[in-house]
Each structure stands twice: as C-alpha cells, then as structure tokens.
C-alpha cells in the first residue's frame, strides 16, 4: 500500500453525517418535544472542515478523497454536495437494520466500509456532531481498526508518511505525530470550507458517484448493528425548559438605554 500511495498520493476517507440544522430546531409548544420533521439538514459543520482539510491535503499530496456516510438514503444529498465541493466519490451504508445504532455499531460499520474501500491512508471525521454530539465515532473507528488517532485537530501535515496534527486541548495546542493509517478528528471552524463548484455539480448530475452498500455487503450480521448491536439505548428524551426570562428590551436612545439597564441590574442586586 505504501508504494501505491507514494505513486498515486493519499487515499483519504472523510466520514460525514447529515444533521438537522441546529438553529432551525424548534420545540413544539404543545408536546414539548423537538420538531424534527421538515427541518432542513446540512453536512455536520465540523465534517465540512474535515472535508476542507482533505481537499487541502490532496492539493499538496495528490490522491483521492472518498466521502463515507451511514444513514438513510436522504444522506445522498450530503454526499453529493461533498462531491460537488471536490470529493472524488462517495459511499453510503444504508440499511433498515442500522436504525437505532449507537456509537459502537456506527463506528464498526464505518470501519468495515473503510476496510472494504481498501488502501486508506487517512480517515478524517468531525470532532463531534451537532445532534448527538458524542465525539466517540472517530476514536471508535480507530479503536476497532487498532490504528492511531489524533483528536481535535486544527491542522495536519504529512511528512514522510507520518501525520503531524495540532491538537487543541483545554490548556493549549499539542502537536502529535503518528504513522498512517491514522484517524484524525477535525476541530470545528479550523478552516473555511469551500462552496460547491459548477464543475462539481455537473459531475454529480452525471451520476454514478455515490454507491450504496447494505450491512450484508460489509459482512455485518443483524445482531451486530442497529438497536440489537447497540449497548446503549436512549431511554427517554426530555425537552430542556430554558429558565423563563424577563426579556425586557430597552428601546430608548443609547445613553438612556444603558442607564435603564444599569438601574435594573442594581435593582436586581447583581451589580454593585
């Protein structure tokens, strides 16, 4: 594999999930549950940064970018968008039996797909999603494959087939170095994802760039995936009741608005 990569550049898989747009999620005032139907979706934002990172690496090293997702067929839309942004091709693992998967079968399924793609040098994921936001899928894939991982990366370089990643943690930025193949999870906002291009859109229109696999195609038993293959269940979801707020807006001209605000805060005894 090293030889092929040296000759033909890197084979990078970007795992991406389609998520409901966070700011559009509304709580139904009657049922107090989240209204998820009809909410527009997008490529999970940090996954867009992961794709951009892959595109930058391909510009430097050449090679191929494959986008990979697991989910319902509606996820095709995001894979196609990623191709229009510059990825070469995509795979969607889609199967009724996958419904209800927690991070264990999700990581397992993605890992199997990565094995089936074959010859992968680098696997990029987002740091976490905006819906379930566990951040466990990337490390889970690395764990299943028993390969190195570098999480929360804001930038990577590849030198002599070693990955050098800047890892953003609470008290600073670490630089980690690991051999390939390697899983890197990408920090949200670390770069500016590009827009789909016209040529990209035309490529997508011609079709045939997103291939579907079922669980059986990956040699997965029904007992390994979906609810059956998931150690955890979501037992219940409570809607968060935000503390009810006064919501008083001071509409007066700035000097007066500020003085009314300060007066109110003094009355509430929160400022001296």
């Amino acid at each position, binding site marked *: 594999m090293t030889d092929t990569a040296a000759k033909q550049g890197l084979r990078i898989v970007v795992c991406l999930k389609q998520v409901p747009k966070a700011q559009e*999620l509304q709580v139904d005032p009657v049922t107090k549950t989240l209204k998820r139907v009809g909410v527009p979706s997008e490529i999970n934002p940090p996954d867009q940064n992961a794709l951009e990172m892959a595109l930058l690496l391909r510009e430097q090293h050449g090679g191929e970018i494959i986008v990979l997702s697991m989910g319902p067929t509606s996820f095709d839309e995001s894979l196609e968008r990623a191709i229009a942004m510059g990825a070469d091709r995509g795979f969607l693992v889609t199967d009724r039996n996958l419904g209800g998967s927690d991070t*264990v079968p999700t990581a397992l399924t993605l890992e199997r797909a990565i094995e089936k793609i074959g010859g992968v040098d680098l696997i990029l994921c987002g740091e976490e999603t905006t819906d379930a936001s566990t951040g466990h899928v990337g*490390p889970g894939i690395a764990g299943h494959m028993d390969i190195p991982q570098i999480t929360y990366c804001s930038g990577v370089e590849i030198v002599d087939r070693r990955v050098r990643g800047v890892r953003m943690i609470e008290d600073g930025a670490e630089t980690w*170095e690991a051999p390939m193949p390697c899983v890197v999870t990408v920090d949200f906002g670390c770069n500016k994802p590009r827009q789909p291009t016209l040529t990209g859109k035309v490529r997508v229109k011609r079709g045939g760039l997103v291939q579907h696999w079922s669980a059986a195609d990956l040699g997965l038993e029904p007992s390994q995936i979906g609810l059956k293959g998931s150690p*955890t269940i979501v037992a219940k979801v409570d809607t*968060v009741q935000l503390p009810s707020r006064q919501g008083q*807006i001071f509409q007066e001209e700035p000097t007066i608005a500020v003085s009314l*605000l300060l007066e109110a*805060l003094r009355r509430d005894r929160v400022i001296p």
Partner: protein
Amino acid sequence: MAEHRGVWVFLEARNGALRDVSVQLIGEARRIADKRGADLTGILPGWNVEPLARQAIECGCDRILLVEDPRLEFYTSRPFTRVMATLRWKYNPEVILFGASKNGRDLGGRLHAAIDTGLAADCVRFDVTEEGFLDMIRPAFGGKSLAHIHCEEHRPQMASARWNVFPMPPRDRSRTGEVVRETVVFEPADFDTKIVGFKPTETHETRKIDDAKILVSGGFGLGDPKNFALLEELASLLGGAVASSRKPVDLGWVPKALQVGQTGKTVRPSLYIAVGISGAVQHLAGMQEAAKIVAINNDPKAAIFEIADYGIVGDLFQLIPEAIRQLKAFRGQAESARPREATPPS
C-alpha cells in the same frame, strides 16, 4: 455475565495535579457508589503521580489503582486505552466514569469500542434506576434536549461527565484508603504516537471564568481582538471577568480557556453579559443557567435575546463605552458621597 462490582473513575493527571473535572467527578461517583452500595475506585495512570492518589482518597475514593510508567507522563490514546482495558478485564467494574475533558473523551471513545460496551457522552446528571441501572443524563441537539441513556446488557456502564457541572467535593484529610500498584504490559505499537510539541495558553484565565460572579462575554461582533480591551475595562469596573464565545477563540483572538459553551466551559455566574454574541445553541448550552443574562447585539432577531433578561439592540461600540462612562460616573458619585472615615475611638 460475570459479576461486575464497583464504581470507577478515571483520574486524569496533568502537570502534577489532578484535573478539576476528575476531582468533581469523584464527588459524583461517590454518590453513585453509595447508592449502589459499592466501593469507589480511582484509576490513576501517569508518572510520579503517587501523591495524587492520597488527594483522590481524601476527596472520596476508597481505593486507587496506580499505574506508573515514565511513558505515561503525557496522555496519548493507545497506552491509556491499554491500561483501562487491562484493568477492566482484571477487575470487572460495574461502572466507569470519565471526565469529559478532551483527553477523557478521546480515551472513552476509543476504549468503548475496544471492550465492546456503551458510552454516554458529556453527562450532566446521573441517577440510579429502580432496577439498579445507571441513568446517564446528557444534553443532545445542542442542549435543546436531555437524553437519558441506559446500558443494560453490557458491562461496564460507561459515561463521561461535563466539566464544572458537579461541585468539588470537600477534602477530608482523615479519610483513608488503599493504593494498589498495577503493572500493565504494553505493545510497541502503543507508543507509535508521539507528542512533539506543546504551546500553552494562559491557563490562569480559566479559574477566573469558573469562579467569577459576573462575566462579560464577547463574540464575533467585537470584530477584532483588540476590542476585547473594552470588555476588560467593563468587567473590571464590575468586579467580573471576560469570557468568550467560540468564534473569537477559533480565530485566535482570545485563549481557549475563556470559551463558554458546549465544547467550552459551563458557567453559572450571577450575571452574564453577552456582547456581540448571536446565541447559537452550542453557546447557550454553556451559559443558559446564569442567574441573569444581558444581551447587547445590533441584530434584533439574534437568538440571544430570546433567553435574555435584559437587552439593548444597538452598536456595542457605542453601548459599552457608554456603560463604562456611566459606571465610572456612578462610582465617582458614590466615592464623594461616602462619609469620611471616622477617627478610631481612643
């Protein structure tokens, strides 16, 4: 299923100290262990960390499994996963908890796939169900909902817990416990990842935002790092500290330690003044429990107004200097109105 007993906490050591999130978790894990009638064990991998075992016991652990190896001085994913997996198979714990620091999440995420069990991320509350399962309660959808996660048929039940949602447990210097040294066999591949550099950010700022009663928090609307000086001035007049949304952090305007939100700090000040912050769900997740929230934003439709107690729609570059001016004037008045210090009685 073999018998699984005991509650474990992963104790993260950094720069010769236990991280706050680990200590906070000892308090919560103690509560769960007591509910289950179980022992609380702290797992402490590292190098020269033995003195920290004592602290963990004084904070509530019954026993520490200590794994010391110079190669464990700094956290990397594989050797730490090896430590946890080895001990898990040796002792069969019922519950393992991690602090949801970047390293804790990195470790938990890898470990759960390696030992085939579940993992609930970033919990903010724990309970024990009637059947004796751990009820792991965590935010989802950017904090708009709280999911109860159960792991009934796999052991251990694992979860990570958010920073600063559980209080620091009191330290009882008379508490005693057992420290057990463990050795773990590593493989060469465990050390193929190396840390080759570190650039620290100013950590002293973290304390300030954790503890401050008043936070003046700036967002992308500040437009430039130097404008944070305005917020510094306002904060110091109010006796508070400066915090930030994620965008200024990502842009390198302010240190990561100031970030409030889902992937930053959870704060609970008595007053949170959001300046030029739009109010994205991930930001709200870290500050919505402030006692009072003030929003300053020039966009009347900004989501931050929906959870504010008070707001002003307008230009922050006009409003913040005005607030500074008025606070100074008020203070000046208060000074001159204050009676002269009385001569002490002789």
